């Protein structure tokens, strides 16, 4: 298997130049803010994801962490795709990303829905790395639930 499939340019780029990195306070003091810290015990990857929301819209999805290129690039893509989105849309994207990562490389990703997330299609073929890619997404789900967002995707689309 070619390692280039795993380390797509897009992934390396997000890793070297992460988008929206750093945990931020909410702009709106009335917003509900919660975070979740997830670790991958086999490799020591760590990520904290923080969600600021009014319940309907995710005003910000901020994060911090340490780990391999896959987990850190994935957090950057998570931020890019979900920050500022209506919660229901965000969870549709979340579901699509989880489906892609669980697909063992058999799922064709929809670029409309997943944006730069499509670059992770190759990662799905490396079972040992799927956990790395999913780490920030799982932390996001916990953080959103703690912030009081209904985490079931209602308007599945794409």
């Amino acid at each position, binding site marked *: 298997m070619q390692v280039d499939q795993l*380390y797509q340019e897009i992934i390396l780029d997000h890793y070297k130049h992460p988008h929206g990195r750093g945990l931020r306070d909410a702009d709106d003091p009335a917003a509900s803010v919660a975070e979740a810290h997830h670790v991958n015990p*086999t*490799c*020591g990857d760590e990520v904290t994801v923080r969600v600021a929301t009014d319940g309907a819209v995710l005003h910000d999805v901020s994060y911090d962490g*340490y780990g*391999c*290129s896959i987990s850190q690039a994935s957090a950057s893509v998570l931020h890019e795709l979900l920050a500022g989105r209506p919660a229901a849309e965000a969870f549709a994207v979340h579901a699509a990303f989880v489906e892609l990562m669980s697909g063992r490389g058999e799922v064709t990703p929809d670029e409309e829905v997943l944006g730069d997330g499509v670059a992770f299609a190759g990662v799905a073929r490396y079972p040992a*790395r799927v956990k790395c890619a999913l780490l920030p997404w799982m932390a996001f789900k916990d953080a959103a639930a703690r912030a009081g967002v209904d985490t079931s995707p209602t308007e599945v689309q794409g």
Partner: protein
Amino acid sequence: MTTIAIPPGMPQYGDVPSYDVAAVRADFPILDRKVNGHPLVYLDSANTSHKPRQVLDVLREHYEWRNANVSRSVHTLGTEATEAYEGARAKVAAFINAPSPDEVVFTKNSTEAINIVAYAFSNASLRPDADPRFRLGPGDEVVISEMEHHSNIVPWQLLCERTGATLRWFPVTDHGRLDESGLTDLVNERTKIVSLVHMSNILGTVNATSRITQRVREVGALLLLDCSQSVPHMPMDVVDYDPDFIVFTGHKMCAPSGIGVLWGRAELLAAMPPVLGGGSMIETVAMSGSTFAPPPTRFEAGTPPIAEAVALGAAVDYLSGVGMRAIQWHEKQLTAYALDALATVPGLRIFGPNVPVGRGGTISFALGDIHPHDVGQVLDSLGVQVRVGHHCARPVCTRFGVPAMTRASFYLYTTTEEIDALVAGLEQVRKVFA
């Protein structure tokens, strides 16, 4: 390698024991395989070793010819299986120079062997009539080190939780050596057992044990050596090293997984209460209570891993055939070569001793700030198999301020060409993440 002439009559460089590495490699079928289009470069023997054909043949022959349960049948197959199983015990005993095969308890692995000792302490602590050497309570101390495998940390943490005893540990120096400066304070009259790794699976450090053994004797404590990484790679003589217990695990020494060893001094094993209860470990059973078999059977409840034990016997035959001194020397040369070669890689930092003295052929490192997962993945695409992560020794990673390390480890079949492939692979890693 050197031009200095050694005077005649002194040991010469050529006198070191050696063997034909290519011939040894031919015994290991897996070494012929390709990985991701490249010849396999297996640098993860500290994790698990490969198995030579001689061991695989014995495993197969056992099932095809003398498969039966042990110690329970009068029939021919049962007798032959029992003889093979007990024969393996005798081979293992001879391999570590144990005074008697009865001092060799077969377990599932090192982890189970350590847990047997920890639970024997636990069980003894509940019984006023138990041997006081195994009774633990508040005020008593158990000593380990910061460089232990989780298998030699967690059982003692749990034991201390159950009994109220205190867990203490030797720190590790910046060079990855055991810090013995606090020995007399750390090992004292309150100490009941010191459980120490002989060779670290992450730093490669081989601990000098004699000062510790002496101190343990002075205070009347017991000493367990975790030899999971040493017994496969160097000669072990339990009379010479003089611990009370050692543990090791078959899969790291050319044997299958599922078989390990607890060696204990006969008199101590005899004083230990049983841990797992069940068939085979009893003397007599009545509904009102049971009495227990003498060691080693007392600690081998249920049907043991029979074929695996027999194959472990074949593995020690194989290793002895090559020669443990020669294997140790081969790995020392590889380690010296690898330490030199890795020093040429820009940005590479070695954790643990950086000289081939008092250390084995297991080298952990960081490559700049590239995450070990990424290092391992790029190396894998080139056929080079290394381990990445915390290596079940998280406190060591914490000690050196990193969440994970990349580790290359060698064995009797490793070649300098494979180390070259590692170094070339690391160049590739640096390119991808430049």
